[in-house]
């Protein structure tokens, strides 16, 4: 069996390991655009803020491919995939034949339209090289502009603030991380960031950048100007599908996959940020471009590629974000689309906590927790499992909630009733 994997992100890495475990003798080839050993992408912002170095990023050793018996072509990009002839072509004109293929090419930053984008010190923040370049040009930068308040925009702003750079963040909704949190948690996050020196501008878009070689200012559509020695564009990501022939493989926003993570072409699989599967809370097709989902999908795709039939139930969006003195944990549908959902909230200003639960038909489908997040995993697994809640929803809002409360009838008392007469 000839296995080929495109991409050495975490989805690709888990697939390689899983395939090798199940098929000790198959030939495995990897084509990976990045030359670094597999590393932790979410941690690049910790290199930017100075709390980690690049040496802390790898999640597998330099001998990873060799130890697994994987033939790796790194620094090479797939430019064409012919699903019918079952061959792919790289930018070094290499043709690679496959029996089973995994597309784990991740995502690319969404580009923006504006004049002057060719100026220096305008960055995306997606990979280790980007952050290396950003750090190299930090010298003398006092003000930075961050476009977008999503996970990446937020992390870029937070990291630059920690470096002592004055940051202005330009966002569309009234608060950052609007895809991850609800308005209340969003305003707590905003307050915390503003308290620590962030400037936030809502609404306006950039139409042009100005500078002499390096960016010096940004002009907004409302006519105003923001001076900035550095710009980070964090306007979301798009699945990296440009090398696919869409007449051969079904692509929506991401590459469409079934419950075995197989694409519309038998033998070709997709996993991670590039794949569009099913969201268990939304109950619809969805790309959940997050690390734990890439791990899960890489493993399931690997198993199916190596001949072990495993189905994937669907992914759940989830995030945990720590901002100065605030911990925020969210998952599932945090902003219900209509009023058929039951929403329970509790605020405790003294403990500085906030909890919000979203229910559909007696099942938990969304969650926001601010501070005291330790029980978050219990609730996320309830959402993921799609179980009905065995207790009153209000009981989950109690600060003393713990996993034992979910099994009111299982233990002890059965025995007590029978024996304790």
């Amino acid at each position, binding site marked *: 069996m000839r296995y080929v994997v495109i991409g050495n992100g975490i989805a690709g890495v888990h697939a390689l390991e899983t395939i090798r475990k199940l098929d000790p003798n198959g030939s495995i080839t990897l084509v990976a655009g990045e030359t670094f050993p597999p590393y932790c992408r979410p941690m690049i912002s910790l290199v930017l803020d100075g709390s980690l170095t690049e040496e802390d990023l790898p999640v597998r050793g330099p001998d990873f491919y060799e130890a697994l018996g994987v033939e790796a072509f790194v620094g090479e990009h797939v430019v064409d995939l012919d699903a019918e002839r079952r061959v792919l072509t790289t930018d070094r004109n290499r043709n690679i034949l496959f029996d089973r293929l995994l597309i784990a090419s991740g995502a690319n930053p969404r580009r923006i339209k504006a004049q002057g984008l060719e100026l220096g010190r305008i960055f995306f923040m997606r990979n280790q090289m980007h952050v290396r370049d950003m750090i190299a040009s930090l010298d003398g930068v006092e003000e930075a502009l961050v476009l977008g308040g999503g996970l990446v925009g937020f992390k870029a702003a937070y990291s630059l603030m920690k470096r002592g750079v004055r940051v202005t963040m330009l966002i569309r909704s009234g608060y950052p991380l609007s895809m991850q949190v609800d308005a209340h948690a969003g305003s707590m996050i905003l307050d915390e960031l503003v308290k620590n020196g962030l400037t936030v501008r809502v609404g306006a878009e950039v139409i042009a950048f100005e500078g002499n070689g390096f960016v010096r200012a940004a002009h907004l559509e409302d006519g105003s100007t923001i001076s900035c020695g550095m710009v980070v564009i964090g306007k979301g990501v798009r699945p990296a599908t440009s090398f696919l022939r869409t007449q051969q493989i079904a692509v929506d926003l991401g590459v469409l996959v079934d419950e075995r993570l197989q694409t519309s072409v038998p033998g070709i699989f997709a996993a991670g940020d590039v794949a569009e599967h099913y969201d268990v809370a939304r109950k619809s097709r969805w790309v959940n471009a997050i*690390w734990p989902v890439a791990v899960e999908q890489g493993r399931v795709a690997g198993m199916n590629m190596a001949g072990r039939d495993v189905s994937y139930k669907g992914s759940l969006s989830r995030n945990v974000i720590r901002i100065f003195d605030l911990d925020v944990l969210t998952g599932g549908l945090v902003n219900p689309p209509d009023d058929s959902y039951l929403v329970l909230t509790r605020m405790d200003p003294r403990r500085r906590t906030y909890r919000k639960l979203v229910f559909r038909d007696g099942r938990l489908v969304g969650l926001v927790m601010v501070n005291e997040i330790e029980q978050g*995993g*219990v609730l996320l697994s309830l959402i993921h499992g799609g179980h009905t809640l065995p207790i009153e929803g209000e009981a989950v809002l109690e600060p003393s909630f713990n996993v034992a409360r979910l*099994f009111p009838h299982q233990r002890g008392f059965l025995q007590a009733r029978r024996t304790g007469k």
Partner: protein
Amino acid sequence: MKKVIVHPERCVGCMQCMAACAAAHSRSKSVHGAVLEFPIPKPRIHVGSGIYGEGFPNRCRHCDPAPCMLACLPGAIYRDDSMETVLIDPFRCINCASCAMACPFGVIRYHEDRAAPPGKCIAVKCDNCLERQLQGLIPACAEVCKSGALRFEEPAADLKDKTDEIARRISLGAVEGDFAHAPALALLNAFKRAQREVNERRP
């Protein structure tokens, strides 16, 4: 291999396991010494209360595959296969709380610890008292537990105990006294439940 096996129906909620756990992970190895240390040692076992106020000792299950391990961003969570224990490398941990999202039992806490560089908060959870086990001691929580809720035993032996108990219960001719495995604890729990129900019915 012996493991700490939890028998939640026997927990009286005394929390001695928490104190013993914190002490076992302190420098001084004593409760009195531990309270004077910095960072103050904290327990890795947490006695929660169930719906009727009954005790519930919540401790890492050392799952395999472990969801926390798969979710860990820096790869700080790993398994010691020989001891069947999931461990956290305090130097690699970045305190991102990704494991808080993954643990279905809610047993991980975030704070400073003796094992971590000074001033650094890390994810902390049960390590099966490997340090004690290497010295021939049993895990501190099981050693201190008086009610038999935490016992260090062979899983197979425990399973046999449970099977025997059920067999006794359903056998013909069993004597009344045979039924209750721990009659006093069962009574205590029944009492807690009754109290709660009475409270709820009060206008």
